[in-house]
């Protein structure tokens, strides 16, 4: 049954090994352009029956794909920006790309009212005040709890919607499981840093993430030294943050990579090891280590921990005896400037903003903008603008599914829900109830454990468990009551009086913002009429009031409301 002794002479798997080598050679021969093995082009085929709905007006597309759904008045405001859609979008984008100039007083007052205390603390203050396990867990975790709740408040009440959306994108790209050690206490800094760089220069943001306590702990580089290198961060830096797995060529000889050494098409295992060495010593001023380096939670590049041997990263030589800082920064330059990074992240942006499987032509043109602006301070803004003003953006609809966060937030926006999330040490705030429901959707804020970030394709989010849990959120929005038994959403107070048809059409326009399918509308009218002639004006009895709320819940659960 089992061979106790190894058999070096004749391995039974020799044939498999030969086959593997053949496959490796084949892979190398195919590496010239986009690697077909790792950058596949076949679409999934089940459940791909496309949604056959007319493309809604641009205002609705903008507010669903560049924002978290329209609040009452948003669509009209967009349409009043200019005389045609193209100009409206240009004006809207120019406003959104200058968030400091946007009047966000409603959000400001919500945040002030919520009484958050950690959001503006410096890195060192967070480190000293919260990252200390001798303190109560409520104090240690206060920062992440505040950031988690603020994410909802900003998305619901904030007018800088594009910034929120792109910040959410980068949190997925540079995903940190925020309940991980240290990350929970330092997370306001991490979120602030992402937010400040969301429209800026990628190379800058890459460096900030690499030097953040949250990332250093989450992917273990905080421990990595010449004596004990830890590959975790280096590998994900290449695979997830920059070039992407589509440019990972496995364990082949670097010299066999097409374009080596001047312009290698991708990275190999040797590059992972070299990057690991180059980043040894990138750690923190941390009381856990020996004294003398301070205890502030700030980044330090420790030469005494650094592997000073010569390295070669993507063909480029890092000479021996460079400092830890010089080696690490050189690596970030190489990675940020690689065309593979432009391709990988441009595709992710197109996927977020247009469709799950964006056209390669759009990906390529966005990547060209990315590469042409690698040193620009508004590099990312330029790429987003390119994608948002493309013809593909305006002509694509229903090929993406709102993720649960967007579905929940857009429902709360549609319903003008009046809810403020606070951090209650007794866990009795409404946010605790809401988040308990929300997390069941599988999209808990900053709670994705692996380093690749939440998926951004509908195939994941249409699974029955996640779909049912998001539907429940629609009912939560219209049915949740505070301690005084008052509803958080005054649905009835916002409703016109009229017939079942008039009420349904009113709420479709208000919540969805464009005409929905005849089947969905008919089902809603049938529900609202409950056997009565749908043209009769409904009396505002208690039953009808309940019915109106249930109707709005149904709109939030409708097929159309899940799309974007």
């Amino acid at each position, binding site marked *: 049954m089992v061979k106790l002794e190894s058999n070096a002479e004749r391995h039974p798997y020799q044939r498999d090994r030969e086959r593997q080598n053949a496959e490796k050679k084949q892979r190398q021969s195919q590496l010239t352009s986009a690697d077909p093995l790792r950058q596949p082009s076949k679409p999934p085929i089940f459940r791909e*029956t496309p949604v056959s709905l007319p493309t809604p007006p641009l205002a609705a597309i903008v507010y669903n794909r560049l924002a978290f759904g329209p609040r009452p008045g948003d669509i009209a405001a967009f349409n009043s920006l200019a005389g045609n859609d193209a100009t409206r979008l240009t004006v809207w984008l120019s406003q959104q790309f200058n968030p400091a100039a946007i009047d966000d007083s409603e959000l400001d007052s919500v945040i002030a009212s919520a009484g958050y205390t950690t959001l503006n603390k410096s890195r060192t203050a967070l480190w000293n005040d919260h990252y200390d396990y001798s303190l109560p867990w409520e104090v240690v975790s206060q920062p992440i709890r505040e950031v988690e709740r603020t994410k909802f408040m900003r998305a619901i009440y904030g007018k800088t919607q594009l910034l929120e959306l792109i910040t959410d994108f980068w949190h997925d790209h540079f995903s940190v499981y925020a309940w991980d050690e240290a990350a929970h206490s330092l997370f306001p800094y991490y979120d602030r840093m992402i937010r400040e760089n969301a429209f800026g220069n990628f190379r800058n943001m890459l460096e900030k993430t690499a030097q953040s306590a949250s990332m250093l702990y989450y992917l273990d580089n905080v421990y990595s030294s010449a004596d004990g290198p830890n590959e975790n961060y280096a590998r994900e830096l290449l695979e997830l943050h920059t070039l992407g797995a589509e440019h990972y060529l496995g364990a082949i000889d670097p010299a066999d990579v097409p374009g080596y050494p001047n312009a290698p098409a991708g990275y190999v295992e040797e590059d992972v090891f070299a990057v690991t060495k180059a980043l040894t010593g990138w750690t923190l001023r941390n009381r856990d280590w020996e004294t003398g380096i301070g205890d502030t939670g700030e980044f330090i590049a420790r030469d005494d921990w650094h592997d000073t041997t010569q390295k070669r990263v993507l063909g480029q030589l890092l000479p021996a005896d460079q400092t830890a800082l010089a080696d690490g920064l050189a690596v970030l330059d190489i990675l940020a400037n690689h065309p593979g990074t432009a391709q990988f992240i441009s595709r992710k942006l197109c996927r977020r903003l247009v469709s799950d499987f964006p056209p390669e032509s759009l990906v390529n043109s966005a990547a060209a903008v990315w590469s042409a602006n690698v040193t620009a301070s508004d590099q990312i803004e330029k790429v987003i603008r390119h994608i948002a003003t493309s013809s593909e953006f305006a002509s694509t609809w229903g090929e993406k599914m709102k993720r649960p966060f967007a579905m929940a937030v857009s429902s709360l926006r549609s319903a003008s829900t009046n809810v403020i999330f606070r951090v209650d040490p007794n866990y009795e705030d409404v946010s605790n109830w809401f988040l308990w429901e929300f997390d069941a959707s599988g999209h808990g804020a900053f709670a994705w454990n692996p380093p690749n970030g939440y998926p951004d394709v509908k195939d994941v989010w249409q699974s029955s468990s996640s779909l049912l849990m998001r539907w429940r959120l629609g009912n939560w929005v219209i049915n949740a009551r505070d301690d005084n038994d008052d509803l958080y959403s005054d649905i009835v107070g916002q409703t016109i009086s009229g017939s079942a048809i008039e009420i349904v059409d009113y709420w479709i326009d208000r919540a969805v913002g464009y005409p929905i399918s005849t089947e969905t509308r008919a089902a809603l009218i049938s529900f609202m009429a409950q056997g009565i002639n749908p043209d009769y004006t409904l009396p505002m009895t208690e039953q009808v009031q309940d019915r109106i709320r249930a109707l709005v819940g*149904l709109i939030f659960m409708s097929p159309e409301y899940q799309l974007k």
Partner: protein
Amino acid sequence: MTVSRRQFLMGCSSAIAALAGSRFNGVAFGNPEEEPNQEILLTVFLRGGIDALNLIPPIGGSDRGVYESSRPSLSVPINSAIQLDNTAFGLHPAAASLHDLYTNNDLAIIHAVGMHDDTRSHFDAMNYMEMGTPGQGSTTTGWITRHLASAPNLPSEILMPALAVGHYSPISYLGSSEVLSLNDPYRFSLRNGPWRYQDAQRVAMREMYAADTSWIHQAGLQTLNAADLIEVSNLENYIPPTGITYPDSEFGEHLKIVAQLIKLQVGLRTITVDLGGWDTHEDQGDGDGGYYAALLQTLSDGLYALYDDLTTSGSYSNRLTVVVQSEFGRRLTENGDSGTDHGHGGTMLVLGGNVNGGLHGTWPGLAPGQLFEDMDLEVTTDYRQILSEILIRRLENPNLETVFPGFCDYNPLGIVQGVDLTPNCGVPTAVSSLETKTAGSHSATKALTVAGAGLAATAGLIALRNRDTT
């Protein structure tokens, strides 16, 4: 949608309603006797890459010395490892409950198993493994999806053929129209709206999603059917048979769902469960205690409880095959942080009433010339070899070329009992259409990217690591 497929859960609402009636009398939806040949495959995926060398460490021979010197702070002591028969290998002491299954001849352990692809990426490796196509990330269906589509012995209608326990379904179910995902039965209900209109809301939901016109409608209708079934199943109040204790963890809760749905006889053929937290780059724990040991105990005790439950409650375990796998093993040499980095060869476990217990596979050795790229345990058995044997001998699906394209190379190790059907190395006509037909406008211009936020990101859907420092 021109693809022909079985009428699985969709369209079965009348059947659910009829069967739900019998459930109220305390009996299952069906009886085991009604489907005497119903074989159930449960796959448990250990996300993050389990350290196989500490699960089944060498306890004798020259490799013991290599193992100890490579892992000065992590090696499992000889005197705490549980020797497997008279072999030179032991079982980690935290997996003691697995040893009970092993001595009962219900558990097979296969070491040095995995993929020959050289990737050390979690996400590549999980995708390849679950798609069933190592080295090919472009596959549009999971291997279990293709099994369900090609199995010749499945009835045309099954209430619930495929289950993914968790928030989302894994890549092994990629492209499946029939899989149901279920994470929390307590909340698997839409009855949280205004009470007067709960039934009317449900009617309206069915009307809104009834038009079978798009993916969202299909997904919605299936979810409504599932809610009808789960709401009457009372899954959240499960009391296991006396003496059976599931681990107090999400994994334990998920296994309870598995046990109940198997006993409810809803027709389950394939089930997936995930257990994450195996990406132990730091503070893995010393040789027989710590983080890894605790996680391993959760795995072992969970599998034991499930198996015990299904044995005690009937003859279900005789129709059950459990496969435990992970995307890769970990580096032989420990890193500087009392952890291990990504490696290559790993371990698989196969548990069931028709398993030939024991230690299987070919040990490649740990000496320098025997390692993969001079650092990792080699892979001597392709994981598809194990799965192919289960497909043919237990699930009676000979369509190997369909399930594992390019690997129609039947060579059973003798892990399970059963008849060796002649492998079909062509693709059945009815199934080939699954891979060749595309849907309308979604054609060749679309790119399915493997990593990052791509579709295949589901591969990382469960925690690679669990380090909630509460």
